Structure formats: structure tokens, C-alpha cells
């Protein structure tokens, strides 16, 4: 049996109709993980993965009703809790931290029948855009060992690109799903803020964090997100808006769809390899009945400073809990203060420390109004502008990144150059709308380029319809 690049929908069908067993499939993925070990995409393969696969097969044999994702082997990002398993957020601080409860996404997926194979590499505490900030070594790009995988959910993106699992979970605070999806040529969605429960996701910045998934096509993503989305009593911020059957919303037509592109964004990529790709995508969409228009948001560039003020501010406070008292690694010290400072200094990585410092700067009483409050105000302004555009349009197209994946080590000594990479992805987090990156073309080095599609709040269905159409009918631009 050839398992190569099976879609989730094909897997569910194959297992239900006994074309293959879950154990065979799991063994295939485990061999893929082993084969690409050097990519450093997977931090741990759970020792009960095969056992769970056997359990799926006996369930199939028993003739019982089978759930929606029966026997689908998946990987989860290392900051999403799975009860009884280590969940380290790729940090030395949590190297031995055992999750005491499962996150709601994991619970819902387990109920739907998945087999969780292991946990994937990431930037420590999801702070980073290259997966080089992992305490356990960088994860390399799926298609080129010298390039970054992107981040923070680099491991999940690479795992899906190299067929180490059927799909993978990620989290996205400023592009942590979409950017690595773009760099590795897979589909990555950040749903609307509060669409998917954050319970059991180690927080980076609570007002921006969103759980999402990596898949190889849009239909799989639609199917999975329908299952994990929806109100969760354990996350009081989660939305009680009804969840669409996203798969059923894929209509096979984009006729009459209104698509906006942002002038200021296009200007930023005017010199890049995206220029021609965008021309082709726009022509294709118009040919197929979509209505394209250009809008102007002069304040666009400020999304980056807004993001790099708000996210570190929240992060710094979230990181306070790592004090060596209740959990986490604990360094030596004579007093409680010493233990706190020594543990944090020893077990937190450089980027995490930098963001903690930055967060404390923007929150300091003397800088609060000039930085934190100002960023919140600008965020409100940008949000209102985008909401206005989305009232008149179904979708916004943007590049996901400035170009192909960059070299490992190229930006590590210059945080600002690293942060600029997030220019196109942070927007959807600031305004809270859903956004997806789909592979759309290849760059000069033959590495993937992603197209980012944004929609109104809770309008994932428009994204899925468009993404599926572009991938099925458009192919590579």
C-alpha cells in the first residue's frame, strides 16, 4: 500500500472501509519521522502511539460506529497539552513538564478518533519566526537543510510537508502557523480569534493566540477545523457563534467574490518574487469571475510596531509564572528571589528574555501611555480600517512572507530584521480575523511561496472556498 501524501479524508475513508489498518499507516508515519530525523521537526514520539493505533483497529473490527477522524495519525505542537505527556514549549524551563490535563483541541480530536504520534519542535514559548529559538535545536526547512523552517510552529509545518503525519496542530500569535506553512509549502490556517478554544495552550499573548492546523490541502483543513472549533466553557473567551460545516461550504466557484488587495502591502513586495505571482493570481481570479479591487490603508506599516508592543507586553506577564515554585526547572539559590532569578536566567532562552525585557519596557509606568496604550489605540484604528474593507469585500489577499525561507543563522543576531518578516502575518492577529496561507508558487531557489487569504470574523468558509478553488483549479502560479 502506498501511503504517500494521503489526505485526511482519504485516510478516514481507507480506515473505515478497511483498505488499510491504522497500525500500517502509523508505522508508515513513524518511519517517515525516523527518515527525516535530521530535520529536527519532532521532539518526541509518544511511546503509546502504536498501542493506540492497535486500539483503533480493534474498534474498526468490532463494527462500532466510527468517529469523524478515526485512526488519523497526527502531531501536536509542543505547547499544546496532552494529559500525561511532556509539553515543553521547546524550553529548558519545561523540559520535564508533564501536562496535567489535555487541551480542549486535543480532547476534541481524541474524541474524533485521532492517534497522537508525538510533539513538534517550535520556537521557545512560540516566540520567534524561524524555529531557531528552540532550546532543542532549530528545525530545518522541509525542502532545504540550510534554510529555516519558519516559526514558531516550524516542526508542525515540516512534519506535514514531509508526510510525517496526516495533519498537525499549531498555534498562531503573529503568523506562527501561516509563515512556516508558506516556507514549507503546506496549508496553514489561523482561525478567527476565539473560534477555537485556547484551554491547554501555553499562552504567549492571550489577546492574539489562536490554535490552528497544518494540512496538505484546503478540504482537510475545512473538515478538521469544523471539528475543533466552537464554544468551550473552560475558555471563557471562546465564542458561542455556531460553527459552519466548512467542507460543505466549498462550492467550486469563486464567481462574484469580492477580493481586495492592500496598496501599501503590494508596494512592500514590489521588488520581490511575489510581484509576478500576484499578477497571475489576480488575473486568474478575474478570469474566473471574482471582482478584484485595490484599497489603501496608509497606516499599514504600523502593524509591526503595534504587534511588537502588545505581544511582548502580554508575554512578559504570562512568563512571570515561571518562578521555580510550583513547576518547571528550578536552579540553586539561597532565597526564594535567588531561585526565581537563577531559574529564569538559566532556563529561558535569549529571545524569550529579550521579549520579557521589551514587555516590561512598554508596560513601565513612565512609558505605558507612549508605547502600550498608544499601540492599543493604533491597533483599534487599524482594526476599524480593515473591518471597513471587509464589509465591502469577501476576502483580502496578501503575501504570507517577503519571499522564500531565509538561511539558518542569517537573522539571529539582528532581532529587528527577524521581526520584519512578520509584516504580513501579524495583521490578522491584531484584527482577530481568520487567515490562511496556501502554497501558491515557488521562488527563485525553487522554495515555496504562500498566498495569504483573510476574511471577515467567523467567515472561515469564504477562505476555504477560495483556497480550495485556487489549489484545485489554479495549481502553481
Amino acid at each position, binding site marked *: 500500500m502506498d501511503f504517500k501524501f494521503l489526505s485526511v479524508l482519504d485516510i478516514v475513508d481507507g480506515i473505515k472501509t478497511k483498505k488499510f489498518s491504522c497500525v500500517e499507516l502509523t508505522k508508515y508515519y513513524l518511519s517517515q519521522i525516523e527518515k527525516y530525523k535530521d530535520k529536527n521537526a519532532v521532539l518526541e514520539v509518544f511511546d503509546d502511539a502504536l498501542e493506540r493505533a492497535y486500539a483503533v483497529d480493534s474498534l474498526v473490527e468490532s463494527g462500532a460506529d466510527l468517529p469523524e477522524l478515526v485512526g488519523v495519525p497526527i502531531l501536536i505542537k509542543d505547547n499544546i497539552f496532552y494529559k500525561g505527556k511532556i509539553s515543553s514549549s521547546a524550553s529548558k524551563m519545561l523540559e520535564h513538564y508533564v501536562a496535567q490535563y489535555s487541551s480542549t483541541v486535543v480532547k476534541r480530536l481524541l474524541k474524533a478518533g485521532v492517534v497522537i504520534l508525538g510533539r513538534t519542535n517550535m520556537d521557545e514559548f512560540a516566540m520567534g519566526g524561524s524555529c531557531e529559538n528552540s532550546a532543542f535545536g532549530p528545525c530545518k526547512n522541509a525542502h532545504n537543510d540550510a534554510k529555516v523552517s519558519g516559526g514558531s510552529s516550524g516542526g508542525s509545518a515540516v512534519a506535514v510537508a514531509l508526510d510525517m503525519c496526516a495533519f498537525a496542530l499549531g498555534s498562531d500569535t503573529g503568523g506562527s502557523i501561516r509563515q512556516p506553512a508558506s516556507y514549507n509549502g503546506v496549508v496553514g490556517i489561523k482561525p478567527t480569534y476565539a473560534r477555537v478554544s485556547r484551554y491547554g495552550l501555553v499562552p504567549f499573548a492571550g489577546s492574539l493566540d489562536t490554535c490552528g492546523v497544518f494540512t496538505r490541502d484546503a478540504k482537510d483543513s475545512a473538515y478538521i477545523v469544523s471539528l475543533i472549533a466552537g464554544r468551550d466553557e473552560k475558555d471563557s473567551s471562546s465564542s458561542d457563534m455556531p460553527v459552519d460545516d466548512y467542507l460543505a461550504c466549498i462550492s467550486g466557484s469563486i464567481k462574484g467574490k469580492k477580493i481586495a488587495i492592500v496598496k501599501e502591502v503590494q508596494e512592500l513586495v514590489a521588488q520581490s518574487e511575489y510581484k509576478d505571482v500576484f499578477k497571475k493570481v489576480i488575473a486568474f481570479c478575474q478570469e474566473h469571475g471574482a471582482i478584484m479591487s485595490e484599497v489603501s490603508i496608509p497606516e499599514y506599516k504600523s502593524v509591526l510596531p503595534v504587534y511588537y508592543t502588545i505581544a511582548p507586553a502580554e508575554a512578559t506577564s504570562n512568563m*512571570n509564572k515561571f518562578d521555580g515554585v*510550583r513547576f518547571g526547572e528550578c536552579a540553586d539559590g539561597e532565597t526564594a528571589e535567588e531561585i526565581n532569578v537563577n531559574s529564569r536566567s538559566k532556563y529561558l532562552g535569549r529571545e524569550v528574555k529579550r521579549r520579557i525585557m521589551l514587555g516590561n519596557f512598554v508596560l513601565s509606568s513612565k512609558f505605558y501611555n507612549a508605547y502600550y496604550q498608544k499601540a492599543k489605540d493604533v491597533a483599534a484604528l487599524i482594526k476599524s480600517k480593515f473591518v471597513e474593507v471587509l464589509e465591502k469585500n469577501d476576502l483580502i489577499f496578501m503575501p504570507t512572507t517577503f519571499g522564500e525561507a531565509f538561511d539558518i543563522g542569517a537573522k539571529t543576531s539582528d532581532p529587528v530584521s527577524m521581526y520584519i518578516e512578520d509584516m504580513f502575518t501579524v495583521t490578522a492577529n491584531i484584527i482577530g480575523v481568520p487567515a490562511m496561507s496556501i502554497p501558491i508558487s515557488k521562488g527563485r531557489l525553487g522554495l515555496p511561496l504562500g498566498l495569504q487569504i483573510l476574511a471577515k470574523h467567523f467567515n472561515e468558509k469564504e477562505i476555504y472556498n477560495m483556497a480550495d478553488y485556487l489549489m484545485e483549479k489554479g495549481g502553481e502560479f
Partner: protein
Amino acid sequence: MDKYRLVIGLEVHAELKTLSKAFCSCKNEVGAIPNTLVCPVCLGLPGASPSINKRAIELTMMAGLALGANIAEEIVFERKNYFYPDLPKGYQICQLRHPIATGGVVEIAGGKRIRLNRIHLEENAGKLLHTGDGRIYVDFNRSGAPILEIVSEPDFSSSKEVVEFISTLRNILMFSGVSDCRMETGGYRFDINLSVQRTDSAELGTRIEMKNLTSFKDVEMAIDYEFQRHIEILEAGVEVSQETRGWDAEKMQTYSVRRKESENDYRHFPDTDLPTITISKEDISRVASELPESYAKRREKYFALGLTKYDVDLLMQNKYLADYFDRVNALTNEPKETANWILTEILALAKNVVDMDYDYIISSSDLALIINMLGKSQISRTNAKEVLLQVVETGKKAKFIVRELGLWGDVDNEDIEEIINALLSENPGIKADYLNSPEVVSNHIIGEVISRTNGKARAEKILEVLANIMG
């Protein structure tokens, strides 16, 4: 005129009376086994998200209403960031920029009105047990429990005023059902901001801060100590340094506490895990309608009943005591006599403990019975006290004791009925005999009842009841 003047502002913390904690569903209870009332939220484990307890907000609104404060239309929770082993998240959820209530006033003795700045809701920290050998044991049961913070304007000019204020405030909070203000477990505690200025100068003195005082006595002594210390420094021509000071209750002196940068700047910012809460006019009137009779109204009511200021002050020192008085008085309608009994005999029996349910000592109906008998001169005062003591000692009903002691005065129909019924069950044949020769049996029963009541029942009453029973 004094050369120096004290200027004091207060922050008062009181634990709220809720069933669950402020931001999670763990039980809000004092005295459980350590670390058994905890969950990922109040333990500050990663990945858990808080959820606001509606009742905690309503109780804070209630405190605001009882203190004449304005209730906000929108309230926001913020994070106050600092490190301490009792603070699991490394920040405390509290309110700074959009508190639940602002303003309000408390009138203390002498009619001085202390203005309030704000009333807000925040979460408690865990409890630290210092072993004394260099270690701290941490219990997070209290972590996340809702506490009320009341901030006054700097309106106090003496320790006496401060103590009057915290005592009056405590009554108001207790009588409005917001908090039990348990002082012995730190459920009612105080931060003091104090400065001393020359009376002949408009220039403000340097402010010091004293945190976490837990008794009225400590508050009084710490303030008096600081006043003297400031005067001595100023007299020496030196500047007072702005700092935080602790109170050593054993040495009866204050000491300087070094503060870290993180405690000088708490970096408050809105907690994005929690939404802004909107309060409607309907919400406010619903909470107001729930507010029990106010402390001031209750005092007025007692004065109207003819109680003295001494009685009222004593009764109103505690809601349990005042409630007990109300229950007894409802049965006696003898306010003065009832107050005397409660404030002398009952309080003495309770060993002056004020935080308790006095029905455990003697039920309000039994105490009322004793007072009523005394009122009708059915027993002497000495005997009344004897009955009370025996009830407390034996746990028997007052009526039984009275009868046992042979103090039964004018027995009522109910008593006679009880005795006749007892006679009938002792000797079931009586009923048949009565039908045959009523007079003989009647005389026999009259004799028995008179004997069993020590001659206190009258014959015609007995006949009346007997006729009723025999139909």
C-alpha cells in the same frame, strides 16, 4: 496648637463571602487541608484561563452601594505584576483604571466624614508559613479568593480616627452581608499611608507605607509609633525617606523594608484573558434590592426601641449578635431587658466571642421564654439566671428546667394538656372510667395535675382542658 500634623490614608482589604473563588470554580473556604482547593487557574499553571465569578462583582457592588459610592458602567480587570512565592501567576488580577465603584463616605464618631476614593475587586494571594529555619511552606487554597479593596482619601489625622473607621467599616461590610471580616485569619487587613507635616506649613510630608496590618491594636500602635518617629526625624532637621515599613508586633516598632524595582512599578495593564464587563442600571437596582437593611438604619431602629448608645454600640459590633437580639426581641418585645440579657449574660457565656451563632449557647426562643417569665413575674431574677445556666450546662429545654426546678408559675393550657395526655398514656383505662363516672375521674386528674405542677395549676383550667381532650 500642635507643631506637627498626621495625614493618613488607608487601603482596607476584606475577604468576600462567595462560595467559589474569583476567577475559577475552586471552593472559597478557610481552614481546609493545604493545597486541596486548587486548580490550574489558581495554581497559575500554564494554559488555564480565568472565568469571572458574577457574585464577587455583585458583592463588591453591594459594598459600594452600602458605602454610598458610584457604581461604574464598565469595569476592567488588570494585572499587577510582581514576584512573590505566594503569587502563583506572578501577577495579581486587580483593578486600577476602571474599578467597580468610586467615591463613597464613612461617618465616624464625632460626625467626621471620611471620603472614599474607590472600591474594587481583586484576588487574594496564597498563604506563606515561615518555618523560621530558612524555608517557607506555601498553601495556595486562598489563592484567587475574592477580596474587596477599599481605598480612602487621606482624611485621617489620628490613629484613633483610623481605628474608628476600620471598626465602623467592618460593621457596614458585615451588616451588608458582603464579608465576614474575620480578623483572626487575616480576612480583614490594612495598608497605611502616612505622612507628617508641620502645622505652620502647607508643604506635604514624605509619605511612608505600612502593609498588611491585621489587628486594630497593631494599626493604632504602628501609627503612633510612626508619628513619633517622624517627629523625631523632623526635629533633628533630617528628611524622612520615602519607603515601605513593616510592623514588628513583638518589638512594637516599625522597620524599613527594601523594595525591589518590580514593586516600585507594578506595570498594570488590562488582563486580556478577561473581558470588559458592562453594568446596567437594572443590574444596579437588582443588587440594591438585595442589600440588607443598612448598618445606619439598624442603629436608628435600635435607638427608636429605647436602647442606650452603650447597648447599640455593643450589639452592633457584630451582625450575629444583632441578629440574635432581633430574634429574641421579636418574641419578648422587651428591647431593653432583652439587650441587657444578651449583653451581660450571653456575652459572658460566650466569653466575649463576637463571631458566633449565639443560638448555640441558648436558642433565641428559650432565652425569650426566660425573659418573658421574668417579665410576668412568674420567676424571680435569681431563678431566671439559674434556669439560663442550667440550660447552657445541660442542653435541656428551658421549659423543662423550669418545671424541674419547680419554678413553674401559672401553668398554661398547653402544659396541662401535656400532663393529662401523659396520664392517659400511663393508664389507658382512664378514658373508659371517665365516660362512666366523669366526676370521680376528673377529681383524680385534678389532683394529679396539681401535684405534678407543684400546686400551680388551677382546678377550673384543668377541667376545661380535660373536657376538651375527652371531647
